[in-house]
């Protein structure tokens, strides 16, 4: 058999049928749901008098709308409350397993899934959420879908798909101390552009990738979508397997052994061909900071915002101007001189235990700077929060002046009460710096947890390699 990429294997193993034009019916092993993109899908099922095809593949959790402050009295915003209650009701009516808001396992869907072992190598995983690409870190084919497809998967356990192309991003060598997976992916997006991955499944490979923890790999694959690719992938290795051992939904005992020997086959064959390949040297990657309104508008911490003279075309000049106007920044500004108002450590990109540990290291024994109006940590799940508290990280953050919150999406997209006021500037560990993303008129700079924490203490961006 010809050498295959990991994506080729996953695709082939899930084909239910294929037409001559390449349109295929692909089987879905795991369907994750949250409250924002599912209500209309359930309504569709009811209207057509249809039932879920295979109940046990579905797992739901509310995350986008949940408050991150005291939840004992429920959600005060009536519109958010209705959406979460609608998820509760839909899951109860159709018999779908849901982790409700006040369960300790509740969290951002892309944190909860892997944590529970509901994300396994070799699966196809979908969710009505573009950051489903996160789960590709486990050697699974995972991508976001719209609400019509949520309904399609519920009703048929399949999706109508066309095969993507293969891209490999190889990161050789080792990262400098203080440089993380977040910096790799931001540097990649800076190189590739936000549409550079369109039409591809991106496999991340190379020494710098396979030495990353699962948390780091999830951060990488999470932002494949910001490079335009629906799916990111990392092939299975010992680190993948060790992460999954004894997770609640992972196979146990004899079946575990059987699963592991299958999982070990989930790697791209030697000599397989990729349609596009990019090679980076990890040693040259500096901590990254976005300065504009698209994730590709990014610069190294020791760099500067571009100038109009550096732009090649009129369109580029126009978009630079628009972005800088919105961000209220001048061309040529040094990245480390940008002052901040708020700091947000959280989101499905960077809210796992390792992220919190990295941030805490910068915070320990310090106080947040005077110009920082609010610095908050929002753990990715109740279990991450509990683990962090066991390690005393909550105290480290609180003593420095950070707020320590309940898990959820929070100020990643500001659907709940956590948001920026117009004009406020935020260092954020999330994944999107679009206009208004963290609150209307708010200005977002995307960074790693270490960079966000160090910025909270200094009041502006600093180079975490220089400690």
């Amino acid at each position: 058999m010809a050498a295959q990429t990991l994506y080729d294997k996953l695709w082939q193993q899930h084909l239910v049928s294929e037409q001559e034009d390449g349109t295929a019916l692909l089987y879905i092993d795991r369907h994750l749901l949250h409250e924002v993109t599912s209500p209309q899908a359930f309504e569709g099922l009811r209207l057509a008098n249809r039932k879920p095809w295979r109940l046990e593949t579905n797992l739901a959790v509310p995350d986008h709308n949940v408050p991150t402050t005291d939840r004992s009295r429920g959600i005060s915003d009536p519109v958010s409350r209705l959406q979460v209650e609608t998820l509760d009701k839909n899951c109860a009516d159709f018999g779908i397993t849901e982790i409700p808001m006040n369960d300790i396992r509740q969290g951002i869907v892309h944190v909860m899934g892997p944590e529970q072992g509901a994300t396994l190598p070799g699966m196809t995983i979908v969710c009505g959420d573009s950051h489903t690409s996160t789960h590709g870190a486990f050697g699974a084919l995972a991508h976001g879908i719209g609400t019509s497809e949520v309904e399609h998967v519920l009703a048929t356990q399949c999706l109508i798909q066309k095969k993507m192309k293969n891209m490999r991003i190889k990161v050789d060598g080792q990262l400098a101390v203080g440089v993380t997976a977040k910096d790799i992916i931001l540097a990649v997006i800076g190189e590739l552009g936000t549409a550079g991955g369109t039409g591809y499944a991106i496999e991340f490979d190379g020494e710098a990738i396979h030495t990353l923890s699962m948390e780091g790999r999830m951060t990488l694959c999470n932002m494949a979508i910001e490079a335009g690719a629906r799916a990111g992938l990392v092939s299975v290795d010992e680190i993948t397997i060790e992460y999954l051992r004894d997770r609640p939904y992972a196979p146990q005992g004899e079946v575990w052994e059987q699963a592991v020997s299958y999982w070990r086959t989930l790697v791209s064959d030697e000599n397989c061909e990729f349609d596009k390949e990019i090679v980076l040297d990890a040693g040259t990657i500096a901590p990254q900071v976005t300065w504009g309104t698209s994730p590709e508008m990014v610069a190294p911490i020791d760099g500067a915002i571009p100038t109009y003279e550096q732009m090649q075309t009129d369109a580029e000049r126009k978009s630079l101007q628009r972005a800088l106007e919105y961000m209220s920044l001048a061309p040529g500004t040094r990245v480390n001189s940008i002052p901040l108002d708020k700091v947000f450590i959280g989101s499905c990109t960077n809210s796992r235990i390792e992220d919190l540990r990295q941030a805490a290291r910068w915070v320990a024994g310090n106080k947040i700077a005077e110009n920082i109006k609010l610095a908050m940590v929002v753990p990715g799940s109740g279990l991450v929060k509990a683990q962090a508290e066991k390690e005393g990280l909550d105290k480290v953050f609180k003593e420095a002046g950070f707020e320590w919150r309940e898990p959820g999406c929070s100020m990643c997209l500001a659907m709940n009460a956590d948001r920026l006021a117009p004009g406020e500037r935020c260092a954020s560990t999330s994944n999107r710096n679009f206009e208004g993303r963290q609150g209307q008129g708010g200005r977002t700079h995307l960074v790693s947890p270490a960079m966000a924490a160090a910025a909270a203490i200094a009041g502006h961006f600093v180079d975490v390699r220089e400690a």
Partner: protein
Amino acid sequence: MKKLTEWQGIVMPLDRANVDTDAIIPKQYLKSIKRTGFGPNLFDDWRYLDPGEPGDDHSKRRLNTEFVMNQSRYQGATVLLARENFGCGSSREHAPWALLDAGFRVLIASSFAEIFYNNCFKNGILPIVLNEEIVEQLFAEVLADPGYELAVDLAKQQICKPDGEVVNFQLEEFRKQALLEGLDEIGLTLQKADLIRAYESKRRQQVPWLFNAPGDI
């Protein structure tokens, strides 16, 4: 699914690259549990000067007269002309729902983000990809000619300009058929129920841990 065969309408130009789904429909409106009613909030942050929340009377908000949607010459537009990577960002189908609710049935750009592109077809919206020169040319023509309209014939995969010039466009056959016939995709897939079951029983042998008892995941 809504059908679309032929379409003619006023063209509204949106001269920005990388228009994301947060710009198309901001997050506060995603709290709705319906598919309709998003029209007044299409491009909300650009369209209004004051902030809006679900349940507000949006007709009372202050309009940003600079924004194309508020200019009289583009009233009633049903064709949107945009730049590269339109619809990037989230998977929210609320983005095509908002466009549809505001009357747009045809979108033209040099590229679209994948999930958004796919979501359009599920809602009877035709996203057309044209090369950058043609898009540039269309921008120039729309700006020069108030009331500029385009006519689209999906079966022929053609756009007809006011001067009679015809532009051909590409699109995958299965998407075209689904839109032309307004197919119920779920119904079609369910016709293959036997194939799906056959796949499942084969898979159950190979990866039994994915087929535990119901509720057990």
